[in-house]
Each structure stands twice: as C-alpha cells, then as structure tokens.
C-alpha cells in the first residue's frame, strides 16, 4: 500500500514533468505564432491527462496544470491576426488530433473562442461540444473533461441578459446544455464504482466523494442561470434532474444530488414543486439516507417560513404540510429497513416544520405525533438511545414552541408517544414537561388537563411495573419528587368545585406513589387543599348549603385520608405537622370537631409513632404553638388538649427539654388576643414547674458531672416571667422576678457554676431590658420600678 502511494507520487511527478516539457515548446510556438507547432505540443501536453494511474486527487493536480496552460492557448486562439486561421477553420483543425482526450480539450478551448467570436450561435457550439464529449467514457477523465467544458462555458451561456442571448439562443438552450452535461457527468460518476476491482470499494467510495462537487457544480450553474424561472425549473430543470437522480440507482449519487437540489435552488421553488421533489424520495435506493435529505428540506422550508410572514400564505396554498407528511409516510413505508431513529428524526423535522409554519394548527402537531406512534407501535421497546433522544426532541419541540404545556395537553397522541420511552427517558421527559410548566408559570386549570398531565408524568408519580428500583439515584429521585411537589402548586383553578376535582385527581395519582414518594408529594397536596379551604373561608357567606360539594368539611375529610396515608409510610413527624396545619385551618373555619379530630390524630401519632426524643421535642413545641393559636375549642375540649400537652411536656426525657416545653406550655393559658384565654394562675403554675425542673436539672448536673449546668434555663424562665409581667398577668409580681434574678446570681456565683458566656450575655441583656423599661417611664416604667436588684 505504501508502495502504491509512492508510485502514485512518481507518476504524478512524471505527468507534471511531461506537461511542463510540452508546455515549454508550446510557449515557444505561441511566441513565434506557429499554430501548427502550438497544436502539436498542446496535444502532446494534454496526452498526459490520458493516464489511468492517478487517484482523483492527484489527477486533479495534473488537470489544474494543464488547465492553466490551456488558458494561454486560448488567448492565442483568440488572436487570429497572429495565427491567420479563422476560428471556424481552427475548430476543424483541432479535431484532426488522433487521440480523443487532447482533441476534446482543444475542441472545448477553441469552442470557447468560437462562442465569443459570435460567428456561430452559442447554442450550436455548446451542443456540439457537449455531444462530442461523449467520446470519453472513462469516469475520471470524462468527469474532468466535462468539468472543463462546464468551466469554459459558464460565462457563455445564452442566459437572459447575457450577450450570447439571441433570437436563436434562448435560455432553454443554456438549460439544455447544462442539463445534458450534468446527466453525462452523473452517469460517469456512477460508473466509477464499477471500475477496478471490487475489493477497494471503500477507497472507491472515498474517491467518488472527492469528485462529487464536479457533478454538483452543474446544479449550481443551473441555479445561477437568471432565466430559470419557476416555470422552467418546474417543467424542465427539476423534472430532468430528478429523472437522472432516480434512474442512476446509486445511493451515493442520489443522496448527494438530492441534498444539492435542496441547497442550491431557492426556497420558493421548492415550495412550489414540493410534490415533485417529494415524489422522488420513495423512488430512491433503500440505502439512501432519505431522512437526512428530507430533514434538510424541511429545515430549509422552516427557515424560509421564519424569514418572513409574507411567505406563509404560500405554504398554505401549496398544502406543504400535507405533502411533506404524505412523503414521509411513503418513505418510511418504502424503506422497511430504516431504523427507528431514522423515522423518528423525520417526524422531528416535520414537527419542527409544522411548528414553524403552522403554529396555529395543533391538529397537525397531533397528526405528526400520531404517525410517530403508529411507527413506534411496531417496535416493542425502543432500545436505541439515539432513537430515544429523538423522541425526546419530538416531545420537547411543542413545549418549546408554545411555551405552554396546556397546549401539549390537548394533543391526544402526546402521552401515547411517551409510552414508548424507556423508564429513564420517560422520567427525563416528564421533568422537561414540569420544568416547562415552572419556567412559564403555567397554571393547569381543569381537572381534565390535570388528568392528562398526570398521565404524561406518570413515570415520576409511581413505579412502573417491574422497574428496577435499585438503579434509582437518590439525588435524582429527590429532584424529581421535589419537582412533582412544585408542580402540584401549579394546578390551580379559581373555581372551588373544579379545584376540588383537581385535588381529588392529584390525590388519586399521588396516593399510588408508594412510601418513597408520599413524603414529597403529600405536603404539597395538603397545602394545595388548605389553600382552597382558606379561599372558601374568604367567601364563607356563599358556600352554605348542602348542595355545594366543595365545603371545607369535605376537604378536611379528604385531608384526613391523605395524611393517614402518610402516617402509614411511616413518616409520623411529617404527618403530625400536617395534622396540625389542618387543625389550624379547621380552626379558621370554625370547625371545632374537625380541629379536635386533627389534634387527636396528632396526639395519637405523638404517642404511638414518635419515639425519638429529639423528634418529640420538636413535635411538642409544634403542638404547643398550634394549640396556642386555636380558639375554636370549647373549654372542655381545650382543657383536654392543654392537659395532654402539658402532660407530654413534663414527660420529655431530658430535663432541659422538659423545662423548656413546660414553660412554653404557659402560653397555652395566656393568649394575647382580645378575647383570648388569660389564666394567670395556671401560667404561674407552669413557670413554677419549669423552675422546679430547672432546679432539678442543676442538681442532676451536680450529681452526674460534679458541676452545675449552665444557668441558661433560669434566664429563659426569667424572660418568660418578664413577658407575662409586661402583659399584665397579675400573678407575676415584681418580687417574684426579683427573687428569680437573685437566684440566678447566686447560681452563677456558686463554686460549681460552669462559666458560660452565652448565658452571661443573655442575662446581661435581659437585665438591660429591665433597666430600659424602667427608664422609659410611663405605666410600664412604673411597673418595672417594682423590680429591684
């Protein structure tokens, strides 16, 4: 192989030397105006191009050398005063050459001069040249010869406005000439693959690719002819070119030329000849990458549509969509072996086209998706990741275009396409959908749409049967579920009834999500429902009556069930919080019994499920906080609740926790509202109890560690005292505060006290506050004067 390359270099060098040698004598002959010698040496020079030993690449190098020399010869031919032979005679003279290749190169060169002289109609000369070139059937030599012909004739075509246009020469002659040259070149190009031994197929393909632009150039020339209007393009150019493309039955040529046609001719021509152009596609060889061809066409048309509003009516007029859609259908049908990715890519392009050209025609979009479903239907499971990517692209396109998932939800085929994705991709797609909703702040406002939406994202909502759970990435899962949670808040309707329906649907779907998902989705759902409750509260007057389905009561019933599901997970802390939320909401609705029930549930959870002491602390504070704000309870119920709460508080494990819970309980008896409960005695009881516990904590610390714990608990209790003192609780006296401060000071100065900067600072600022209140004067100042230290 290495040798082959070396040899080729050698042959090329020999060829170049031969050209230079003969060119030298040719120049001499030109300088001395010796036509005979000039012809002789130019023919010899051109004989170097008869070689069969060079690859196209090297042959091109040789060709270019000869090409440059032929320019000089042409200049000489032009000046008939120098050689004294008329161009007509010259045209004959060069044909005396015995070898065909030099003869035809010379003929083309003289032909160029002949046309310029206008002694014969351009079309006659062109016709003669293109016909005579048939003599070279060797693919590479023929291609280069005809390429030379194309080159020298380019500026001499009888185009409209060209100086060679005349009565006898019309643009049709120009078209005819280029078409014929094109046809012949393509035949030669296709022929190339049958040359030489078959085992070098790969090399051949490569060599052929190198030459393709020689063929394609003709199409470019055609597109440059001014006189080719739509009529001529439609009737002649396209018909003939396609005929050649189809008939050559060569996949490489077909692919390249189809692409060429699409790229070189104007968009409006494509639009007006869509049927013809598309009609050729199913006729191409099955190995041709038609999908890329069609995709490129649709991309071009899409861009064209995007370029100007004015062209859109044209699209409608020619029913571009229907035609493209049919064509794709036919191509997919014809190319049985086309992989799924190919078909889907086609649909993606068609969809892009539709979205660009007919954004208002959702039915088109749905149609495309439907067609895609049909194709996918035959494939049990998409294995190909590229195909999967294309499906995602297919599904994402409408979302991006409309920026509105609601539009996509009206597409009946959308979920059906999604069904064909594998689990992972399905989730990715679901995420895309959710993100789109988030990004655009789209509210999904009807129960039906919600239903459809959940159908779409069901991959996130519940485990698929037989799905491998182990593969789940924890982080991804969290992301997904958080997204779902956020999504739930986007499902919203102002109409309570519809909203209730939405909630029911969401509930139906999320409840199926299993223990791992519920903790993410339930809170969202609960709050979404509570929001509805609050709204109903706002319009309380309107909603009385048994007939109205969306009553807070009903919703609370629903909520109970929802949260119950959560406690079964089990996720008791979360359930507890939600119960409390609900209780508070029920409080707002004046539903004592409901609120009571929620509290009961919360307590049950506390008792039965929450074992962790830290969790208990948190829970008890939550309970206290919520209960404090409840005003719906009657005395009895409230007593039961507060009793329970204080009981729980005192039974916490750690003393400091106990202490804090107990002093927090004091607030249960003093609600700083106009008609809130103000039971000063029980407040004091709580605080005293807290003090006792704090004492006990100190002692325990002494026993256990030999040093008393920090006095921070006392300082905290002091603050509670101050609070209630300020609020006017008669049971809290200045003297009691004074005693407490002294107690704290004693504790701090005791030997066993552990120095603690935090409690020091806390105490200091508390004292400063007292000082401040004193100085403020007024009623409060006087009150504080009672505290002495």
């Amino acid at each position, binding site marked *: 192989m290495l040798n082959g390359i070396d040899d080729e270099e050698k042959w090329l060098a020999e060829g170049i030397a031969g050209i230079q040698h003969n060119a030298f004598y040719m120049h001499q002959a030109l300088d001395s105006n010796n036509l005979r010698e000039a012809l002789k040496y130019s023919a010899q020079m051109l004989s170097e191009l*008869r070689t069969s030993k060079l690859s196209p690449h090297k042959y091109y190098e040789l060709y270019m050398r000869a090409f440059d020399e032929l320019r000089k010869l042409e200049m000489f031919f032009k000046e008939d005063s120098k050689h004294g032979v008329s161009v007509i005679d010259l045209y*004959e003279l060069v*044909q*005396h050459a*015995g*070898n*065909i*290749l030099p*003869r035809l190169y010379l003929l083309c060169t003289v032909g160029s001069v002949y046309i310029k002289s206008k002694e014969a109609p351009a079309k006659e000369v062109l016709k003669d040249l293109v*016909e*005579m070139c*048939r*003599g*070279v*059937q*060797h*693919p590479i*030599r*023929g291609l280069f010869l005809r390429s030379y012909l194309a080159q020298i004739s380019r500026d001499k075509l009888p185009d409209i406005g060209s100086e060679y246009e005349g009565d006898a020469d019309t643009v049709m002659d120009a078209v005819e000439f280029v078409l014929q040259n094109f046809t012949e070149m393509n*035949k030669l190009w296709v*022929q190339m693959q049958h*040359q030489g031994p078959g085992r070098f197929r790969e090399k051949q393909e490569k060599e052929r690719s190198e030459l393709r632009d020689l063929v394609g150039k003709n199409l470019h020339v055609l597109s440059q002819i001014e006189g080719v209007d739509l009529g001529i393009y439609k009737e002649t150019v396209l018909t003939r070119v396609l005929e050649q493309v189809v008939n050559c039955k060569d996949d490489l040529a077909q692919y390249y030329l189809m692409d060429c046609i699409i790229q070189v001719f104007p968009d409006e021509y494509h639009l007006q000849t869509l049927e013809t152009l598309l009609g050729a596609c199913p006729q191409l060889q099955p190995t041709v990458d038609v999908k890329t061809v069609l995709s490129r066409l649709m991309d071009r048309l899409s861009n064209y549509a995007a370029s100007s509003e004015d062209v859109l009516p044209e699209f409608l007029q020619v029913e571009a969509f229907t035609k493209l859609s049919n064509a794709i259908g036919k191509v997919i049908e014809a190319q049985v072996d086309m992989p799924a990715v190919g078909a889907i890519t086609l649909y993606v392009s068609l969809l892009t086209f539709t979205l660009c050209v007919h954004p208002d025609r959702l039915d088109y979009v749905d149609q495309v998706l439907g067609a895609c479903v049909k194709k996918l239907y035959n494939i049990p499971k998409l294995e190909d990741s590229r195909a999967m990517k294309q499906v995602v692209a297919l599904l994402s396109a409408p979302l991006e275009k409309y920026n509105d998932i609601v539009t996509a939800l009206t597409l009946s085929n959308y979920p059906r396409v999604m069904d064909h994705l594998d689990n992972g991709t399905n989730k990715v797609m679901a995420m895309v959908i959710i993100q789109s909703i988030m990004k655009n702040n789209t509210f999904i406002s009807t129960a039906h749409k919600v239903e459809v939406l959940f159908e779409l994202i069901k991959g996130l909502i519940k485990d698929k049967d037989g799905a491998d759970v182990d593969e789940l990435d924890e982080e991804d899962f969290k992301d997904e579920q958080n997204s779902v949670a956020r999504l739930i808040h986007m499902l919203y309707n102002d109409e309570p009834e519809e909203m209730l329906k939405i909630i029911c649907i969401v509930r139906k779907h999320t409840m199926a999500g299993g223990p791992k998902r519920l903790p993410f989705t339930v809170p969202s759902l609960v709050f979404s429902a509570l929001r509805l409750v609050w709204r109903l509260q706002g319009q309380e007057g309107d909603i009385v009556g048994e007939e109205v389905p969306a009553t807070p009561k009903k919703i609370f019933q629903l909520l109970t069930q929802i949260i119950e599901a959560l406690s079964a997970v089990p996720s008791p802390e979360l359930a507890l919080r939600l119960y409390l939320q609900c209780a508070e909401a029920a409080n707002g609705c004046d539903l004592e019994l409901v609120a009571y029930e929620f509290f009961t549930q919360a307590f049950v959870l506390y008792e039965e499920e929450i074992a962790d002491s830290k969790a208990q602390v948190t829970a008890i504070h939550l309970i206290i906080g919520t209960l404090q704000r409840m005003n719906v309870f009657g005395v009895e119920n409230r007593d039961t609740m507060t009793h329970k709460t204080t009981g729980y508080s005192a039974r916490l494990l750690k003393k400091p926790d106990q202490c804090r819970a107990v002093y927090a309980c004091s607030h249960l008896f003093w609600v700083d509202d106009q008609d809130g409960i103000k039971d000063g005695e029980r407040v004091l009881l709580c605080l005293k109890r807290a003090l006792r516990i704090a004492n006990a904590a100190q002692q325990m610390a002494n026993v256990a560690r030999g040093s008393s714990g920090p006095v921070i608990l006392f300082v905290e209790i002091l603050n509670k005292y101050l609070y209630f003192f300020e609020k006017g609780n008669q049971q809290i006296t200045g003297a009691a505060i004074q005693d407490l401060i002294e107690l704290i000071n004693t504790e701090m100065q005791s030997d066993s006290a552990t120095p603690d900067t935090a409690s020091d600072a806390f105490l200091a600022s508390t004292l400063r506050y007292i000082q401040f209140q004193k100085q403020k004067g007024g009623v409060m100042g006087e009150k504080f004067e009672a505290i002495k230290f």
Partner: protein
Amino acid sequence: MNFLIGAFKPACNFSITFSDGKSRKQVPMKKENGQTVMVPLFQSQENIAGKISIEPLQGKKIEHNGVKVELLGQIEMYFDRGNFYDFTSLVRELDVPGDIYERKTYPFEFSTVEMPYETYNGVNVRLRYILKVTVSRNYGGSIVEYQDFVVRNYSPPPSINNSIKMEVGIEDCLHIEFEYNKSKYHLKDVIIGKIYFLLVRIKIKNMDLEIRRRESTGSGANTHVETETLAKFELMDGAPVRGESIPIRLFLSPYELTPTHRNINNKFSVKYYLNLVLVDEEDRRYFKQQEITIYRLQDS
C-alpha cells in the same frame, strides 16, 4: 537508358514547356530518388500542348533520324520493375531526319487526350503519365528526355450515397450498431456517424476508427495485396455502458488519400475501408471493416 546518357555528357539541352505553364496548377510529385518536384496537373480530355526546345552543346551538331514526342500512360509493378505497361501511347513526329546546329523549338499538341486513370503512387504499383521526347540517332544511341505530369480526374457528387448502418456483435458479449453517414466520401469530406452500444459485457478500454487502404496488384495466382492503415483515430476512451451512443466525426483532409481505384486496366485496384476497432482491457481487438468509396470532388 537514361543512365547511359548520364555516363556521357549529354549531347544537348532539352526544355519542355507547356503553353499554359504559368497558369497551370502545379502539384508535388515524389520521384523515384525520393525528391519531390512540382509538376503540372492535368485531367482527362484536356489539351496538352507546349513547346520543346533542343539546343546542342556549344559547337556541336546533332545528326538525327527524326525527333518525336510521345505521351505515355504507364503502369509499373514493383515486383516487375523496369517493365512498363503502357495503357496510353500517343505520338507526334516533330522533325524529319536531319541535323540540328542550333537551338530549335518545336510546338506540340495532344488535343483532348483520354487519360482515364489518375496518377497513382502506391506500395507495389505506380501509375504515371509522361511526355517522352526522343531524338533518334544512328550511333551513340537516341537521346531521350522525360517530363512527368500528374493527372487527376474529378467526379461529381454521387447521385446515390447511402449511409452505412450495421448491427454487429458477439453473442452475449458485445452488440453494437454503427452508422456512417455516407458510403462515398470525397477527399476532403468528413465522416459523421455514431456507435450505439446495445450490449456491453466486456470491459472496453478504447475504440478507434481506422482508415485502411487495400492495394491489390496482379491477377490470379500473382495477386499481391498490400494493406496500409492510413489513419488511426480514437473515438472513445474508456468503457461505455449499454445504451451509450458515441459520436464519430473524422475529417479526411489530414490524410493522404487517393480516390478509390477499381480494376485499373486489369492491373491493380485501390480500395478504402473504415475499420472500427474496439480494444478490451486484455488488449483483445474486436473489429468490423466496411468499404467506403473515395472520390475526388471538383474544388468549387
């Protein structure tokens, strides 16, 4: 005999001039010694007239038994060299026996001479026309002088000139149909035609069109045939596919052709053939030969 004279000093100088010598067309003619000389051109039925001057060398006289001029049309076979066959022989007596003392000029004329055959210079045969001036002497041999001239005869365009069209082939291998626009071409004509490939199962490398001249001399067992390829013109480079049609355009003017001569005086004939040759990649040649008639068309 000429060389005998050459051995001695020629006894006199000859000069043969044609009466329209200044205006008559001269054409090149290759002589036996390889030199090319310009000689006048005649055609059949023309008058051949002129003057012959004989000038004895200084101070000498020529005694003779008479002076004559002959117009000879001769055919010479190379395998029978030196034997001329005269198909035309005309003679004019110029002088009665006597003496020539000084330059003497004789006018002569052969009117409407029948010269049916053209001058021809082939491989094995030559046809030539000469004027032969003989001064007969009793001793020292006769003095003879020759003057060549060329005869060309022109034909009108043939009234019937069919194209040559033929389908040939080798079964399951190669089928072609070729067509030459005429069967009769004049010397400056152009052969136009095409080759249509009906079936190609061999890998053709190239295709040539040859012009071949077949000169046959003698008759019966002594017939000599000589074939020369005068033109080898490449028509096609590379392998065509079925359905391909290759054009032919061959200008005859660059080649040294003569008209076709059929049976010239039972001595020889010259025929022309177009030979279509296809060469395959293993250098096998496939060919088909077709006779064409070549004629000389009067220059307009």
